[in-house]
């Protein structure tokens, strides 16, 4: 028997142990198969729970809730008063600088072309869209220009991902080294599409439903697929 109790195993899984205690648990687990199994069990439970609720977070916000906020924004000022904005000018400067930088890099990498190209007679993602599909995880994309919705395996094999950006939204599937676009819709900047988010979302949902094999990937499965280059 060791002095590792249940609360310590759980804190290990939750990432709450300091370095010294974590090493102590690691050593104890390495020598005790029963303890190792208990640790695995707690990891499985956490993965199962977070995986179970993950699709809700990945779904588009329901139109009714969006409307609640939009109606409120119409009554209250949509932007904070000017003084607060000026206090943040340093941040604004940083954003402007990164935009300029981003523009430069974008042009170097992909030339003047947009996010979509035709390659061997099929429509593929390129530039910023392609790199978002390659690298962005649905679980970590605060402030990203393009948001990844769901990642899922398609019937017959291969990965697909839904995305939503300012200019376009859609669904793309991995074909070789490229992301082949299965569906392309106007993004959030298209005012009418934004208003009718439900119909645009319904079209995306229908496409995903038709393609999807089983359940969408949870955060761990998504990260693993990314690590394997979506193959």
């Amino acid at each position, binding site marked *: 028997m060791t002095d590792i109790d*249940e*609360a310590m195993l*759980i*804190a290990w899984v*939750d*990432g*709450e142990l300091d370095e010294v205690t974590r090493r102590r648990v690691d050593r104890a687990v390495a020598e005790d198969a*029963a303890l190792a*199994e*208990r640790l*695995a*069990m*707690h990891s*499985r*439970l*956490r993965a*199962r*729970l*977070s995986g*179970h*609720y*993950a699709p*809700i*977070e*990945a*779904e588009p*916000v*329901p139109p*009714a*809730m*969006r409307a*609640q*906020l*939009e109606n*409120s*924004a119409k009554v*209250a*000022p*949509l*932007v*904070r008063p000017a003084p*607060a904005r000026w206090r943040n000018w340093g941040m604004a400067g940083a954003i402007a600088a990164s935009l300029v930088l981003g523009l430069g890099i974008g042009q170097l990498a992909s030339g003047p072309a947009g996010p979509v190209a035709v390659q061997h007679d099929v429509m593929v993602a390129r530039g910023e869209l392609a790199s978002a599909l390659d690298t962005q995880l649905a679980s970590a994309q*605060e402030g990203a220009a393009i948001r990844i919705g769901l990642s899922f395996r398609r019937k017959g094999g291969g990965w697909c991902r839904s995305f939503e950006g300012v200019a376009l939204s859609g669904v793309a599937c991995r074909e070789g080294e490229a992301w082949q676009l299965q569906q392309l819709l106007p993004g959030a900047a298209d005012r009418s599409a934004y208003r009718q988010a439900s119909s645009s979302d319904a079209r995306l949902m229908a496409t995903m439903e038709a393609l999807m094999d089983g359940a969408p990937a949870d955060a761990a499965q998504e990260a693993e697929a990314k690590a394997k280059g979506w193959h």
Partner: protein
Amino acid sequence: MSFESDLLAILPRLRRFAASLSRDSADGDDLCQAAIERGLKARDQWQPGTRLDSWMYRIMRNLWIDEARARQRAARTFAPEEAGEHVGHAGDRDVEAHVMLSDVDRAMQSLPDEQREAIALVLVEGLSYKEAAQVLDIPMGTLTSRLVRGRGALIELLGEAA
């Protein structure tokens, strides 16, 4: 960024939290809408620079607790014959819900409220112990013991035992 757009950005996570507290995702969306409404009304009480997500988690959690207490009171208050009228209907609903709910939903449902909210914040929302204890306004030790007991119950219910 306006208050509304800040709120919109965290809405996917708030919906997920609401679903993990509620019986199903439809009840979760009702809770989420009520929390948005409350948050918009109380927006002056939110201090810019502090975390909006923690503030909204707290609002939602308090609404959920109030609602649960109101339901319990109603269940005690209604006369037996009145309850009798609804037995058939309620029974159908339960059967329906039983079919619709997954194992995880059912297991979460069966946890005492105080364990469910702790599990939801840490295992589903990924909050640190410190953040979760602040949202729930309880000491860290209380939080960790609820996490231990809640997990034990879930493991038994979900058959994740070693």
